[in-house]
C-alpha cells in the first residue's frame, strides 16, 4: 500500500504533475492502481479534476471513489509531435490523446491515451475501458477499446 507515502516522495513519483493538497491523494491511489474520482458524500455528484469543495453543493465531505474505468471517447486528437515520454515515439506514428466521458456521470471526463489500437482507428464514440500502463516508473491510467455493452 502507498497510503503512507509522504508528500515529498509522492511528488518524486509524479514529476509530470503539479501536485497540490487537493489533488495529491488521487495520484497516491494510482500507485496502488486504484482509478478513483472525487465524489461528494452529500449530493453524490462526481467532479474532476479534484476541487477543495463540491462545486454542486459546496460540501467539503469529498471521497475519492473507485469508478469502473468504462467510458466513451468524447474528444480525440493524434499528436504528430509533442512532449516526450517513455514509450512514445512520434517517429513511428502519431500518439493518440483521448478525453473519455466516464459512464458514471454525464460530462465527467478523464484525459489520457489509448493503447492496443492503431491510432488511426481511435474514433469519437468508441467504447473504452481502463488499462494501467507505466509512465516514468509509476502506474498511469490509460484506455483500450472494449466490446460494446
Amino acid at each position, binding site marked *: 500500500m502507498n497510503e503512507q507515502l509522504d508528500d515529498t516522495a509522492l511528488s518524486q513519483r509524479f514529476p509530470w504533475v503539479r501536485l497540490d493538497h487537493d489533488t495529491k491523494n488521487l495520484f497516491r491511489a494510482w500507485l496502488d492502481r486504484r482509478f478513483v474520482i472525487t465524489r461528494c458524500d452529500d449530493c453524490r455528484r462526481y467532479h474532476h479534476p479534484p476541487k477543495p469543495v463540491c462545486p454542486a453543493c459546496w460540501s467539503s465531505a469529498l471521497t475519492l471513489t473507485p469508478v469502473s474505468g468504462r467510458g466513451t471517447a468524447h474528444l480525440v486528437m493524434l499528436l504528430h509531435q509533442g512532449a516526450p515520454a517513455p514509450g*512514445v515515439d512520434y517517429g513511428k506514428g502519431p500518439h493518440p490523446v483521448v478525453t473519455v466521458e466516464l459512464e458514471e456521470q454525464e460530462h465527467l471526463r478523464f484525459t489520457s491515451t489509448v493503447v492496443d489500437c492503431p491510432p488511426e482507428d481511435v474514433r469519437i464514440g468508441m467504447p473504452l475501458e481502463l488499462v494501467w500502463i507505466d509512465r516514468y516508473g509509476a502506474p498511469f491510467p490509460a484506455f483500450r477499446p472494449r466490446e460494446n455493452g
Partner: protein
Amino acid sequence: MRNPIKDQVAIVGVGSTGFSRDAGERSPKSLACEASIRAIRDAGLTAKDINGVVSTQEPMAPQPHRLSAALGIPDVTHFSSPTPVAMFSLIDAMNAIFSGACDTVLVSFAFQRLPWNSRSAARDPFRKFDITGGVVPMPESMDPSAAYTAWASRYIHEHGVPREALGRVALNMRANALRNPLATMKTPLTMKDYLRARIIRDPLCLLDMDVPVDGADSFVLTTVEKAKEITDHPVVIHATSVGLVDQNDEDQLPSLAHHGQHVVVDALRKKSDVWLEDVDVFFPYDGFTIITLGWIENFGWCETGQAGCFLEEHWDDASGRVLIDGRIPLNPHGGSLSEGATRGSGHVREAVVQLRHQAGDRQVEGAQTALIGCGGFFFNSQGAILRRL
C-alpha cells in the same frame, strides 16, 4: 443588463511596432516603449498626460511600473497587469477611467517568441521563460493549445465538416495580411497549400495555429469628454463582456453549445444598442481556426455547424477572402494567424484604425461599428463593440 459605461470611454491613441518572426536583438520592454510612444504621440499627448498604466502579463513583457519608469510617466494613480487576452487589459483601463481611478491610460501589449518557438529565439540567451512550473511536460496534457485541437475533433465529428471549413479561415487571414504592412506573413496561401501543410495535432495543421511573433501594440484610453477635445470623431467603447461557465477545465467543458463565447454574446447583445445588422467590420479571434468558426456561429451569423458553409457562401473570389454580404471583412489586418499572435491586440488596433477611416486600401467604406469576439472557449472568452461617434 446594465451598461452605464456605454460610450463613456474612448480609444484615442494606437501605436504598433509591426510584427515579425525576428525583431532582432530587442527586449520586449524596448518593443513596448516604441509602441507606447507611438500611441501617446498618436493621441497628441505627452507622458505627463498619462496617469494610468496597464501592461498585459505576456511572457517577459514589462511590468507596469517598469514600463512607467522607462517612459518617465510622472505620477500614476492606477496600474495593473491583467492576464491575456486583449480585452482584459482594455476593460480594466476602461473601468479605471470610468470609476475615476485615473483619467488617461496607456495600455501595453508586448510579445516575444519563446525559446521553443524558433531556432533564432532559442539562440537568444536572454529569452528564458519557464512555462512549466518545474514539472515534466506530458503528451496527454490538456493545455489550452492542445484542447482547441481536441474540441476541433468534436466539432468535425458533430457536424461532419471537411478540413476546408477550417482552411477558409486561414486563407481569409492570409489574403488580408497581404494588404497590411504591419503583418508578419507576406506570401499568398492557397487551399492546396493548406491541405498539404504539416499536421501537428490531428485534426489541426500548422496553418490552423497562430504565428508567434516579436512586436508590440499600445493604446491610449481616456474619457469621451477629453476625446472630443482631441478629435471630432472619437472611437468609443460601446459594450464589452467577458464570459465564463462553471465547468471551464479544458476537458470538462460541457459542450460546444455552452462555453465562454455564449456568455459573452448574450451579455453583449443585452448591453448594446446595435447588433449584427449594424456591424461594418468583424473581428473573430483566430488563435486557432476552430475558435473563429465558434465566434461566427455563436454571434449568430449562421447556424451551429454551418460556419464553413457561411464562409464559402460569402467568399469573395476576386479578393480571395470573406466579405459578408459583399461588404463586411473578417479581420482585415490578417488576424493572429497571419498578422501575428498578438492575442487580440491586433484585432482591437485594426478596429480603431478602421473606425477612424485610416486603414488605407483596407478601409471599409464609412465604417461606424466594429464587433470583436476575442479569446477562445475556456477561460478567456471576451467581446466588445466599438463605435465611431
